[in-house]
């Protein structure tokens, strides 16, 4: 609420996510098209995807390596229980329309366009964004970059198209940040990846407006495996935002996306995402950044949806004086397990890392902060601060903090601060004594708790996040 009320003078004239309700997000479109796409994973399917996209052979090789590695690797032995995820019931590839990869909303299939309009994406693009990508099931239906940025050499392209149009550039970076065999789900990702974004910002170009991609899963048992590759060249700067949602079916869906970010010397990258998959989605996402000399990476993430989330954005500070900020919010409601956190590996000298994690749990939900700080021998004078705050909204919700710190350099300074608690009865009564009802008072306290993170988001996303939290807060009494 703090975000909404504090801005509401200016906000009415701007784009509003305020009207989006849970039913807008949970409601699917018709899905006759899915009968053309089989469920389950096989080498045939992998080859078929590659053929359908007319990919060069080196991409198919990566896919096949991924598939092999997926079969070799076991599920993680830690974290939430994902044994109910049945790989053979997932549909790994499907298209909602043959009209994909459009440059104009007018060309997008009207039914699909309506979905994105309901989510207010085209409106936001006109008002505040430098470029927009919209993915529906496995493929992008729309991707566009405003001309002023194109003229400066910025590339903002559907990842499938980028492979065709910029093969050398893609090949230079693809899989170099997140290796194929990193873990079972990265391997799966590389086997069946489809869609996603390629963002390339040339040296010294500052993209002042955010670039956004929105990912939507529509059909039941869908899997989405978009690949996002971001390269911010020396001295350049960009802000990339991702929004995600899927309708609710009561039958599992799988999201195993992958994000690779290369932040070159003195460059600055900010990656913001609000992930709001439906509650039957497994969100097993891999995000990683390589940060060079004097470069700065910022991860800002809100995780609200999904039944199970396992997401730990990772930063590898390889250059000297590299910096990273991780800001994360997780909200676990009934039947949700939000296992999120951050991983930072430091190799360069005089690097700084800051991790702020805020988690909320309600209605018996579980949220866990899981973190790894790894300070290598070469990382002289590293400074790392970790701050984890957890707020439990009732007596039967759970919050855990599992921090790991490995440090083999004596000159490093690491602080870890963790707080967990319930909503203060005193504050609640105080707000009520001013005429504010219990539910609104709780929402206000929760928004205040998250304020530090929400205020780093662009206004529209702050409003969206606040709105989503309000939806989760509904019925929070008793």
């Amino acid at each position: 609420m703090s975000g909404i009320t504090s801005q509401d003078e200016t906000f009415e004239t701007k784009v509003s996510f305020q009207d989006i309700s849970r039913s807008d997000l949970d409601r699917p479109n018709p899905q006759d098209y899915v009968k053309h796409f089989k469920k389950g994973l096989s080498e045939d399917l992998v080859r078929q995807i590659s053929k359908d996209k007319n990919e060069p052979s080196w991409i198919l090789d990566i896919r096949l390596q991924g598939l092999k590695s997926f079969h070799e690797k076991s599920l993680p032995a830690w974290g939430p229980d994902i044994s109910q995820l049945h790989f053979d019931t997932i549909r790994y590839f499907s298209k909602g329309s043959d009209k994909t990869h459009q440059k104009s909303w007018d060309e997008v299939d009207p039914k699909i366009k309506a979905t994105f309009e309901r989510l207010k994406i085209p409106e936001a693009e006109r008002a505040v964004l430098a470029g927009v990508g919209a993915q529906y099931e496995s493929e992008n239906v729309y991707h566009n970059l405003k001309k002023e940025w194109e003229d400066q050499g910025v590339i903002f392209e559907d990842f499938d198209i980028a492979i065709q149009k910029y093969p050398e550039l893609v090949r230079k970076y693809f899989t170099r940040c997140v290796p194929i065999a990193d873990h079972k789900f990265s391997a799966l990702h590389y086997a069946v990846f489809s869609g996603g974004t390629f963002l390339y910002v040339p040296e010294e170009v500052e993209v002042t407006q955010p670039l956004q991609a929105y990912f939507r899963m529509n059909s039941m048992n869908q899997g989405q495996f978009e690949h996002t590759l971001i390269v911010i060249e020396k001295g350049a700067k960009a802000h990339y935002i991702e929004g995600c949602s899927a309708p609710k079916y009561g039958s599992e869906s799988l999201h195993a996306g992958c994000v690779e970010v290369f932040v070159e010397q003195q460059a600055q990258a900010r990656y913001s995402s609000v992930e709001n998959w439906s509650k039957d989605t497994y969100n097993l996402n891999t995000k990683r950044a390589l940060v060079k000399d004097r470069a700065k990476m910022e991860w800002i993430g809100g995780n609200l949806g999904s039944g199970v989330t396992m997401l730990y954005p990772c930063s590898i500070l390889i250059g000297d004086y590299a910096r990273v900020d991780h800001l994360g919010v997780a909200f676990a409601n009934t039947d949700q397990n939000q296992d999120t956190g951050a991983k930072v590996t430091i190799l360069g000298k005089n690097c700084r890392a800051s991790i702020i994690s805020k988690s909320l749990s309600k209605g018996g939900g579980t949220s866990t902060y899981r973190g790894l700080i790894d300070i290598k021998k070469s990382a002289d004078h590293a400074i790392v601060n970790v701050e984890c705050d957890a707020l439990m909204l009732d007596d039967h919700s759970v919050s855990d903090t599992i921090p790991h710190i490995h440090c083999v350099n004596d000159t490093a300074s690491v602080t870890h601060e963790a707080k967990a608690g319930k909503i203060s009865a005193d504050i609640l009564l105080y707000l009520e004594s001013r005429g504010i009802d219990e539910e609104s008072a709780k929402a206000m306290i929760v928004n205040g708790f998250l304020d530090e993170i929400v205020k780093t988001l662009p206004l529209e996303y702050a409003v969206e996040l606040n709105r989503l939290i309000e939806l989760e807060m509904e019925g929070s009494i008793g």
Partner: protein
Amino acid sequence: MSQSFVGSESKSSLMVLCIENVHAQWNDTPILQGVNLEVDKGEMHVILGPNGSGKSTLGKVILGDQAYQKTDGNIRFNGESFDGLEPHERAQKGFFLSWQSPPSIDGVSAKDLLLTAKKSLDPDFRSSFRLQKSLKERLHGMHLSDEFMGRSYNVGASGGEQRKMEMVSLLTLDPLCAFLDEIDSGIDVDSMHALNEGIQEFIQRDGKSVILISHTQKFLQLVKPTHAHLLVQGKIIRSDDHSLISYIHKNGFQEFLPKKKNLKVLSS
């Protein structure tokens, strides 16, 4: 008021708060033991009494704090019973409690808090721009900087600043009846004058009333309550005009306290 007789109409429509024989306890410990108090519009009452006599409890019980159980008696506000109403509903009826130690709230600004409160109290309230403007003026009136609008509520604020924020809230939310629980404690002389000006501004508005708890004679001399009550061991044992204030300050509470019978036992 449809049930009132013509003769009592004028009297009852003036009365904002009527407390009859209120008993209340906290964790099975009786605190209020039959409090009676009537407050009319336009009146300013002070409740005096030694520490632990139940003054703050009275404010919390009127608010409807669940930590206290009202075991007997009636609280009527503006002609309606407060029974069964939640604290926010009592606030919406026009009762305001200023807290002795208000909490600090991370990430919630005074602007957000008061805007949300104002909207809850008045569903027709629209102009947040005007509220923001008047909030700024009120802060200046209390010698508080603009910063207090946007920063986390009461976080890092001194006791004096917190109390002045209570006054800013009172003047902004504009209730019918304000219960000010030691709003003057531990404040400097300039702040005391500012708070007094706030109270005077409020009581001069149409149909308002104030109940004060205070131990400071200097403050009470400035504020000039019209009525004074003495609350001892959960009961109002004397009600008078302002002359009671100077009497108590001169003579203390001793003569009003029950005689200690078992002195020997206590001292051994």
